[in-house]
């Protein structure tokens, strides 16, 4: 596993930055008549200014819901039923509709999963930029279009393309348009939800390099949501691992790579083959993610955990009854696992 990646990883920034976004005890429920599915169960997450935080997990673990919750764009029947989302100290959950509207995009923006469908098919690309600018600032249309052109140039697209319709652009171009749009108002945080999943690897790399360059220029924080842990190990400063609506581990990328503590994280690490090095046997994670309308009691991972055995009676009792809580192990490294607590 040591030479899994072919170039060095980011080192965590040494300077202590102020927290930009803080999620405290956040709970999001999907309320369907007769059932309640808890998509996010009391999670805590902190994103600092200028930091790239990765949020990784399997499909359905709640990571997209987290991103949507921060921007407060959760669709019915999802609702935030507990907790706070603090942006620079201010609780977003308590904001009025108009305040939220002004907050969106200006301070926090988002790059959706599929850019293919993120652009209005009947409006020109430039007009969609203008729309957004008009919603947040007083600016003439001509001026706004000019700015839109500049933004396109910034992501490597010909500024004349503001007159194009979305269907006239390629997939990669559309993704870059979305990124340009997300940066238009120079937000402090950009949430990226699987921005490269739908693209081929070559374009993926280009897009990531683009984001990197833009970040160096504009200095925004990124919440990078993906199921591809290998991507995050290269790209992110800190990584949080999500499972079944909970955050089970969070650490700087280098630290996580060096010493993953949670059995789930270890399983994830063992799931992707190295590009170079000897061919090793891959160990996946048996089973499948739990049904969130009826999650396992206690530690949610226990049905699939290789360390959960009924022979260890006392430990087993705890694993199936008590929810593990995030506890620090080492600098900036949090893990929610009974085994780690016990020192195993």
């Amino acid at each position, binding site marked *: 596993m040591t030479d899994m990646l072919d170039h060095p990883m980011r080192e965590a920034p040494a300077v202590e930055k102020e927290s930009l976004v803080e999620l405290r005890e956040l709970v999001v429920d999907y309320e369907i008549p007769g059932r309640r599915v808890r998509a996010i169960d009391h999670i805590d997450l902190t994103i600092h200014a200028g930091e790239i935080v990765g949020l990784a997990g399997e499909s359905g673990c709640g990571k997209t819901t987290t991103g949507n919750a921060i*921007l407060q*764009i959760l*669709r019915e029947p999802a609702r935030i039923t507990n907790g706070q989302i603090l942006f620079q100290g201010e609780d977003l959950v308590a904001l009025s509709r108009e305040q939220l*509207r*002004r*907050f*969106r*995009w*200006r301070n926090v*923006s*988002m790059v*959706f*999963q*599929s850019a293919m*469908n*993120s*652009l*209005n*098919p*009947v*409006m020109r690309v430039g007009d969609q930029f203008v*729309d*957004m600018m008009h*919603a*947040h600032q007083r600016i003439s249309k001509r001026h706004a279009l000019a700015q839109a052109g500049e933004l396109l140039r910034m992501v490597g697209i010909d500024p004349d393309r503001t007159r194009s*319709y979305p*269907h*006239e652009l390629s997939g990669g171009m559309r993704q870059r348009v*979305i990124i340009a*749009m997300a940066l238009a108002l120079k937000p402090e945080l950009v949430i990226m939800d699987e921005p490269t999943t739908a693209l081929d690897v070559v374009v993926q790399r280009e897009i990531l390099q683009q984001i990197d360059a833009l970040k160096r220029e504009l200095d925004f924080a990124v919440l990078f949501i993906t199921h591809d842990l290998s991507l995050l190990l290269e790209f992110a400063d800190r990584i949080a691992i999500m499972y079944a609506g909970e955050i089970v581990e969070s650490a700087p990328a280098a630290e996580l790579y060096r010493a993953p503590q949670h059995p789930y994280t270890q399983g994830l690490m063992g799931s992707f083959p190295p590009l170079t090095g000897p061919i090793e046997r891959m160990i996946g994670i048996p089973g499948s993610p739990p049904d969130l309308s009826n999650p396992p009691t206690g530690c949610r991972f226990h049905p699939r955990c290789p360390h959960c055995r009924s022979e260890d009676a006392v430990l087993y009792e705890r694993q199936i009854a008590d929810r593990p809580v995030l506890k620090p192990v080492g600098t900036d490294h949090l893990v929610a696992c009974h085994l780690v607590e016990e020192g195993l």
Partner: protein
Amino acid sequence: MRYLLRRLGFYAIALWGAVTLNFLLPRLAPGSPIDGLMARLPPSQLAANPHMVENLRAYLDVQQQPLPQAYLGYLKQLATGDFGVSTSNFPAPVSDVIGRVLPYSIFLVGTAFLLSFLLGTTIGMIAAWRRGGIVDNLLTPTFMSLGAFPAFFSSLLAVYFLGLKLGWFPIQHAYDLGLSPGFDWAFLSSAFRHAQLPILIIVLVYAGGWLLGMRNVMINTVEEDYVGLAHAKGLRDWRVMTHYAGRNAVLAPLTGFAAQFGSAVGGLIFIEYVFSYPGAGLTLQQAALGSDYPLAQTLLLFFAVCVLVANLVMDLLYVVLDPRVRTG
């Protein structure tokens, strides 16, 4: 562009088909229409117009010329705008009669149908945007039930309640007796007043269909990513509803516009009949009852052409509204 040309070709063929059907109708009719017609005409009229019989014979031309020749002759007549002579308005040519009544119908159905489309789609858009809200819970079922009654029943109800009982609207004819058509204020305002109730009925009866169509598409459109993104961008709610969701959702019911137009023509006939509104619909009904075949058949052609024109306009509009159709 190719799309439009294809549609145009389709309409041309359909038009030819309609013309041919029109040509064949009198020849397919059992018995001899001319005899039936002759039986109805008062002898005085026959005596006064000896040429009428020949005209009619020539027009109906049942057993005289061989089919292909008659057909070509017919086509030539149509091309030159010669639609024959109206027997119920003898000796006025059919084109004159139609020219007199068609404007009223076009005004009525044009205004009313357009209004019903705008009203229905707007309410449908709002109803779907705020599902379970006041608009949805109140207006959707209201318009659905209004549209459930057949058009002629609704017009009778309207005439009775709104016209007779409440006296809010004039209920007969297109303008006050004593006035004559012209572009003066007195006539126009009277015409407008008389058109109100018929227009209102058409709007109420047909808006429900648009409402439902728009609402159903809109419910799905609301889930689209670009609507979510527009929302996330901090755009104002109504702007997202209209420019992002509505603009896309309206395309689907728009394609049904042309099909609905055919049904609206039917509704128009009933309404003109009930209100004695002197439009093409009432004229058709009376012409048919009075065996005025030239007039009736030409009106049928005109109605078909109107439907085709409506189709064409809709296709044009669609190209304007949906940029994806324009490329290839």
